[in-house]
C-alpha cells in the first residue's frame, strides 16, 4: 500500500499534465500552473527543511570529529546568519543581507566559475591530442573553430569563418540532433515506465 498510493498519484498527475498540454483554455492553464508551481513549491518547502536539518547535522558532526573545522563552522554560521539578516533588516538594496550577498557570496561564486577557464584549457590539452584518425579530425575542427572566433582567422584566410560555420551547422548540428532525438525518446519511455508502474526504483524498489 505504501507503494501503491504514490504510484496512483504519480500516474494521475502525469496523465493530467499530459492532457493539459493540449489545452489553451484558461481553466486548464490555471490548473497546469497550480500543479507545476504551487504544488511543487509546497513539496519543495517541506523537503528544504529536511535538507537544511541534514546539512546542519552533517556539518556539526564533522566539526565535533575535528575534520576541517573551519569549513564546517563557516557553513553552519552562514546557514543561520543569512536568514537572520533577512528577517531583521529585510532584503532591500542597502540591507546587510544584500551586502553579504554582493560582497561575499557573488565574488565566491565568480571565483569558482572562473576556475572553468583553467579546466577548459587542461581538458582541451588532453582531448585534442592527435592519437588516432578521429582525434586528428577533432583537433583540426577545434583549430578551425578557434581561429574563426579570433581576429587572426580572417587574416589567414577568408574561408576559415565559413568553414567553421559549416562545421557548426552541418556535422556538429547533425550529431547533436541525433543525440537529442535519443534523449527525447529515452525521456518518453522513462516517463511512461514510471507512470504505468514498470519502473519503481524512485519509490525505493519493487517491494
Amino acid at each position, binding site marked *: 500500500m505504501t507503494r501503491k498510493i504514490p504510484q496512483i498519484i504519480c500516474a494521475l498527475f502525469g496523465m493530467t499534465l499530459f492532457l493539459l498540454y493540449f489545452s489553451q483554455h*484558461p481553466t486548464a492553464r490555471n490548473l497546469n500552473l497550480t500543479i507545476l508551481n504551487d504544488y511543487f513549491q509546497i513539496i519543495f518547502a517541506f523537503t528544504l527543511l529536511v535538507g537544511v536539518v541534514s546539512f546542519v547535522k552533517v556539518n556539526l558532526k564533522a566539526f565535533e570529529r575535528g575534520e576541517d573545522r573551519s569549513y564546517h563552522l563557516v557553513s553552519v554560521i552562514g546557514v543561520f546568519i543569512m536568514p537572520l539578516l533577512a528577517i531583521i533588516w529585510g532584503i532591500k538594496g542597502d540591507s546587510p543581507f544584500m551586502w553579504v550577498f554582493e560582497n561575499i*557570496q557573488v565574488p565566491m561564486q565568480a571565483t569558482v566559475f572562473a576556475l*572553468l577557464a583553467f579546466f577548459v584549457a587542461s581538458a582541451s590539452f588532453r582531448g585534442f591530442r592527435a592519437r588516432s584518425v578521429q582525434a586528428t579530425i577533432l583537433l583540426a575542427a577545434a583549430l578551425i573553430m578557434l581561429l574563426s572566433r579570433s581576429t587572426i582567422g580572417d587574416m589567414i584566410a577568408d574561408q576559415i569563418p565559413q568553414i567553421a560555420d559549416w562545421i557548426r551547422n552541418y556535422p556538429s548540428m547533425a550529431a547533436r540532433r541525433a543525440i537529442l532525438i535519443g*534523449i527525447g525518446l529515452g525521456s*518518453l519511455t522513462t516517463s511512461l515506465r514510471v507512470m504505468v508502474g514498470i519502473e519503481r*526504483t*524512485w519509490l525505493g524498489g519493487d517491494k
Partner: protein
Amino acid sequence: MLLYLTKLALVPAVAWFDVSKLPVLISAVIAVVIVLYTTYSRKSRERFKIREIAGLKAIEEAIGRATEMALPVLYTPGWGGDIQRPTTIASLNILSHIAEKTAQYNCHLLFPTHDPVIMSVAQEVVRESYARAGFIDRFKEDDIRYVTSSQFGYAAAVEGLITRLKPASIFLLGTFEAESLILAETGNIAGAIQIAGTDSTIQLSFFIVACDYTLIGEELFAASGYLSGDRSIMASIRAQDILKIIIIIFMVTAVLWASFAPSADWWVFR
C-alpha cells in the same frame, strides 16, 4: 463554489482542445501505443538483447576499485535537474544499482545534491538498496546529503569533497550545466575512475574529454533495464528503436518531398 462558477462563466469562450497541437497529439499517441505494446507484448519481450554499453559495464570495476583502495564512491546527479526530470529518475535508477553493490562490498557511498527533494528520494532509494542487499546496518543517512541550491556553491562543495576525500570512483550522472567540467576535471586530477552521463549535449563534450566512460544520450535511460535485466524495461527500450526507425522514415520522406515540392511544409510541427 458559486463564486468559482461565476468566474468560470465570465471566462471568454476558448476551445478546450488546441487544434494547432493536433500533430503533437497524434505523434504522442503513436509513441505511447508503441511503447506500451512492446512493453506488455510477451512475444516482443522474449526476442532481443541490448548491445554492450561500456560505461555501464565499468560500474562493477569502478566499485571494485574503490573497495580495494578503501576509498569512497562519489555519486552526484548534477545541478541542472530536479525530480520532475526523466534524467533524474534515470540517474536514481542507476544509483539504486550502485548502492546495492556498495552495500555488498561495504564501500562508502557519498551522494551530494543541490535539491532537497532529490535528497529525500535518493535517501529512500539507497536505504531500500542496502536493505535489498541485506546490509541495512551499513546505510548512513548523512551520506546522502543536501549541500546548497546555488550552482557554484554546489560545484565548490562537491569539488571540496573530491579534493579532501579523494574518492576512487566518481559517477556524474544526471543533468549538468556549467559545473560539469569543474567536477570532471577535479575528479580527473584526483585520479578517480569517472563514469558520466547527461542529457545536455553541450556538457557531454566536456565529459567525453575528462571522464573515463560517458553514457551518451539514450544510454543513460537504458541503464535501468541494462543493469536490472528486467524484461519489461528492456522491452520498452526496444520501443525507442522502433520509434527511431519511424522518425528516420519520416525525415527521409520529408527531405525527398521538399526536394520535389519546395513550397510544401506538411511535416513542420507548430
